[in-house]
């Protein structure tokens, strides 16, 4: 189908509204999801190349036995950086790149729900990557593996800056990934084209949605673990120190509670790429769409229950081993659903084989090899042998190269014409595929065998005579063949970008909405917001999927500023008109501020960290302060009836974002409390030695509940239009919150123990301290709202900030109830 003909004045008007200012300065301000998506893709592939060079150095060392080209120290930094780079800076961000670019085009929106948050997500990702690699010139790259087990990673055994770089990098990256995930979730539920109901979503959308929800719950585990690590290393706490009541396995539990869901986070969207692109080349819809969508969600859910399979050898009771072994075997089933779905699509389709399709078929083979070796490692007693050998290296590379890299390359070949308007070279593509496919199997398959022959992982050299030499030599050759394949890919991208064949809107005859836009799409994506009638809007002529038809060539245009529809979560019926923000420097400034905090903490320059923190708060307030131009009340009449413009309540995207923030923060506190109870359960001494007196905290609990009541009363007031009631309620809430913090300070001064006394003290002060910090942030937010209340910014219809801050404040209170119960009540229940 050709792109719909659109009147020229409309195009010019939209162009003026949506275009990013030209030049370098414009590019720093851009919030266009397509620009951000391409930035994500390019940056993450640069990191893929850097991580690949590290891998080539390691493979060169291991090519022959007894080689000492790299020192033990350098080798250990190399494998640590290879893991951190590939897993954190390549595998997840590259998928964010696709999703950022493709989502609004697939969903029929003009941008993501939070364009500025999207820019922030990218800039913080970039800052975290730059931050990590400043360790290179300092010669202090992380050296304890991407898994970073304590106590080797603790200060006693690792005194340099190496591990501090690691801890701070994952914390910066957590900001990026969390805001990105919340953005995806809100975008999905709020900004789809009318008619794009949940059962019509492309599978990559299901994949990224599932991964984003998993992120919101899983990432706080890593953040909590990294914060404890940094506190242990720099401020003398004892979370992981067995000589003072801590326990090294606490790190492993938290790390793998994050780490295993993360595996699915970096493969589910990639599997989604295949589930969407493979049917295009098979010229029929995906077999078993509903099953595959359900399997995607199920995988992530089971993925939260298998973390212990990374710890089978840590001395865990047999019953727990049986349970987690069973769960790890069961998780195969949803993956099998996807594999059989792709096979059935191939068998029943009318396939043809451009490079993208070749990569996807190769992917299926690699996926299955990685899958079955995964089942083997799930068999607990066998895992006691293979764990930490090259067999696991083989397994995880078949999984990550097979299920992430191959679909990514396939995805680039598939969407490159959409990104650039030009096709990639097919002849080069064929060479690209075969070098990468043969290379991958040459490097990774012998690792299975050498692993079964007993070669441990993470060894910088090995003696001859153990039967390992030949396989290692083959692997090294394979690694260079694979690298040649990546080089061919890069060459193809660079050549085709300028000289590729002009593609037109839909060169593959694809079924989904992104192919209805021009290639490359204009800044506003859709001049006419489409109305969706089926799962395959561009194949409706030839499929019998019900009688409804999508409308792409006439309909709403929304030309009064940057606007798109906010739709209902399930059925995607238009509920409001959303006003989208203009381009801005603030996300970049905020990301730089976060980077300044990190450098301040790294070099123990607290003035610098404080400067960064102040800059962060200033940026955040600038960000949230309403722009007078975009505040436009009222009702607009559209094809879908009269719709409110920028409405609050559950229709607003702000509400959804706040729910996302609260969910991830609640998870963070849950992991902190898990740490508290885990250490209590492992402690041989009474925990705590002396239970803290509950009376002052009980009073504080009542104060905080009263402040919540006051805020709720004020918020209720503005719903009824009573501005004075809002002011009184919030002012009282702020006063009570300040009183809480003062009393908390009194409580601290009366404590006999300190954070550095033992692990109990560390946990007590860290948990209450983080809660206190949340109270402080909540107070800043309440104060901002109060100032705006005195400026009469709010009314019964326009009270988004009031409601969201109230929700946050109630959440902070709810956390306190959990903290109070855990720290002050449970010690008396023994």
């Amino acid at each position, binding site marked *: 189908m050709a792109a719909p003909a659109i009147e020229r004045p409309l195009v010019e008007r939209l162009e003026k509204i949506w275009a990013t200012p030209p030049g370098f300065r414009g590019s720093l301000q851009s919030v266009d999801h397509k620009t951000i998506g391409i930035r994500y893709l390019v940056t993450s592939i640069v990191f893929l190349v850097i991580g690949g060079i590290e891998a080539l150095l390691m493979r060169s060392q291991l090519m022959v036995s007894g080689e000492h080209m790299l020192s033990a120290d350098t080798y*250990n930094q190399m494998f640590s950086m290879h893991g951190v780079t590939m897993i954190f800076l390549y595998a997840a961000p590259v998928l964010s790149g696709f999703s950022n670019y493709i989502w609004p085009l697939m969903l029929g929106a003009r941008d993501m729900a939070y364009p500025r948050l999207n820019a922030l997500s990218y800039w913080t990702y970039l800052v975290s990557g730059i931050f990590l690699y400043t360790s290179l010139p300092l010669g202090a790259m992380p050296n304890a593996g991407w898994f970073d087990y304590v106590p080797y990673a603790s200060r006693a055994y690792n005194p340099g800056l190496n591990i501090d770089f690691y801890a701070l990098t994952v914390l910066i990256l957590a900001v990026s990934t969390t805001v990105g995930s919340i953005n995806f979730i809100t975008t999905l539920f709020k900004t789809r084209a009318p008619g794009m109901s949940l059962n019509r979503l492309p599978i990559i959308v299901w994949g990224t949605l599932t991964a984003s929800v998993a992120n919101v719950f899983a990432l706080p585990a890593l953040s909590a673990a990294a914060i404890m690590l940094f506190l242990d290393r720099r401020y003398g706490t004892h979370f992981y120190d067995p000589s003072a009541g801590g326990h090294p396995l606490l790190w492993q539990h938290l790390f793998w509670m994050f780490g295993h869901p993360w595996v699915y986070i970096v493969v589910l969207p990639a599997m989604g790429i295949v589930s969407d692109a493979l049917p295009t080349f098979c010229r029929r819809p995906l077999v078993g769409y509903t099953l595959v969508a359900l399997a995607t969600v199920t995988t992530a859910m089971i993925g939260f229950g298998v973390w212990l399979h990374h710890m089978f050898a840590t001395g865990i009771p047999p019953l727990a081993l049986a349970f987690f072994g069973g769960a790890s075997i069961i998780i195969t089933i949803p993956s099998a659903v996807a594999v059989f779905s792709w096979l059935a699509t191939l068998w029943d389709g009318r396939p043809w084989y451009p490079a993208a399709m070749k990569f996807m078929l190769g992917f299926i083979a690699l996926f299955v090899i990685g899958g079955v070796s995964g089942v083997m490692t799930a068999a607990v007693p*066998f895992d006691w042998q293979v764990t930490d050998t090259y067999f696991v290296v083989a397994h995880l590379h078949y999984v990550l190269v097979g299920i992430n890299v191959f679909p990514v390359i396939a995805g680039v070949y598939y969407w490159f014409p959409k990104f650039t308007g030009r096709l990639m070279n097919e002849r080069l593509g064929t060479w690209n595929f075969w070098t990468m496919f043969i290379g991958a199997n040459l490097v990774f398959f012998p690792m299975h065998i050498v692993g079964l022959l007993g070669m441990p992982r993470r060894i910088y050299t090995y003696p001859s005579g153990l*039967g390992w030499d030949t396989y290692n030599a083959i692997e090294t050759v394979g690694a260079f063949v694979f690298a040649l394949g990546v080089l061919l890919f890069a060459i193809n991208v660079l050549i085709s970008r300028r000289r590729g064949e002009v593609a037109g809107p839909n060169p593959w005859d694809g079924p989904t909405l992104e192919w209805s836009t021009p290639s490359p799409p204009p800044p506003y994506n859709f001049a006419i917001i489409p109305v969706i009638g089926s799962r395959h809007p561009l194949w409706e002529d030839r499929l019998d999927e019900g009688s409804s038809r999508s409308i792409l060539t006439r309909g709403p245009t929304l030309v009064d500023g940057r606007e798109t529809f906010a739709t209902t979560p399930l059925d995607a019926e238009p509920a409001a008109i959303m006003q989208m923000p203009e381009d801005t420097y603030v996300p970049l400034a905020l990301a730089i501020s976060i980077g300044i905090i990190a450098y301040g903490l790294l070099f123990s320059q607290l003035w610098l960290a404080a400067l960064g923190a102040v800059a962060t708060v200033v940026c955040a307030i600038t960000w949230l302060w309403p722009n007078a131009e975009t505040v436009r009340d009222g009702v607009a009449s559209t094809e879908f009836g009269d719709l409110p413009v920028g409405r609050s309540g559950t229709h607003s995207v702000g509400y959804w974002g706040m729910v996302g923030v609260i969910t991830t923060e609640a998870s963070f506190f849950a992991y902190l409390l898990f740490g508290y109870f885990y250490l209590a359960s492992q402690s041989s001494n009474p925990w705590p030695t002396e239970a803290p007196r509950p009376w002052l905290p009980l009073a504080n609990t009542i104060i905080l509940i009263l402040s919540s009541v006051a805020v709720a009363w004020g918020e209720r007031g503005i719903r009824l239009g009573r501005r004075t009631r809002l002011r009184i309620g919030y002012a009282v809430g702020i006063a009570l919150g300040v009183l809480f913090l003062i009393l908390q300070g009194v409580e601290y001064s009366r404590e006999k123990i300190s954070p550095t006394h033992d692990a109990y003290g560390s946990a007590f002060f860290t948990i209450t301290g983080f809660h206190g910090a949340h109270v402080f942030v909540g107070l800043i937010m309440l104060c901002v709202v109060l100032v705006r209340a005195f400026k009469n910014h709010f009314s019964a219809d326009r009270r988004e900030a009031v409601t969201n801050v109230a929700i946050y404040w109630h959440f902070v209170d709810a956390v306190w109830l959990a903290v109070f119960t855990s720290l002050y009540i449970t010690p008396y229940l023994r």
Partner: protein
Amino acid sequence: MSTRRARVAVVASAIVLAGCNGTSSYLDATGNAGRSEAILGQWLTAVACAVVVLVCLAIVWGIWRHRGEQNAPSSGKSGTERREIRSGLRWIYVGIAATLVVLLVTFGGTMVTLNAASHPPRVPRLEIDVTGHQWWWELRYQDRAHPDEGFVTANEIHLPIGIPVRVRLRSADVIHSFWLPQIAGKTDVIPGQINEMWVEAKQPGTTRGACGEYCGLQHAMMTLPVVAESPEHFAQWTAQRRAEAVAPMAAEAHAGQIVFSRTCGVCHAVQGTNALGRVGPDLTHFASRPSIGAGILRNTRANLMGWIVNAPAIKEGARMPAMPLDPADLNAVVAYLQTLR
């Protein structure tokens, strides 16, 4: 599972793993727990290979089915004409049913093996307390029937055939993992907790044990020879290891002992002398151990001299400092160490 299928599985994996005779291959395991793990491993390997072959055949068949078709959008109408699309769901159902059967058998086998590997057939009398250090192993043998017959050694382990042995694992510093590939799977060595495992060797022979968990700079060089021998030979070995060092006769070695006690004895112990250090490996029977530095060098005179003079130059990061002894003292210490059999 029938014996016939089991045999097929074993043969299939034997083909895949032809040539796996290295000294740490665990699919031809000789230990009790190791052997049941190996059988499970062989079954898993066979199933895995079968699944991969079947799926690859399915891909090839899918391509073969459509050979000669002109399906590209540019090639004509084939894709754009209206046609019936089959749901294809039955392929998924059949595939999932087959997968479930295989997984259930795998799970059953896992549970049976887990049960067999978790408990020794009888209560072990012999106990070894193993302590992991960066980057060497300390082993303390104890016989519950003869409590006074314990002894300490380092970087070597001997096991009596047919007798279960309890191993208790402690760490002196970071996390290690104790792995005797052909005898039993890994158990982590974690500071702050004492893990236990049991082992029972079934066939005589020497294999290579290693640290399984990354533990820092020299994780690669933290190995120990594992000698499985008949109970008689084992008894001889323990008797010899229990003996204290004999004072050397030769003058040079005697002089070496004096230098050793003064300089090396701060960290190293030689039982029966006044060298009582506990920081480094016990050297009472050093000369009868096959290697130096937990597997980095063969135990020869030349290697030993180089090691004493500058151990960190040979094993980067080694805790043993360079010992700038003058040539006479160095020769004397080496002569002394070579008497410690």
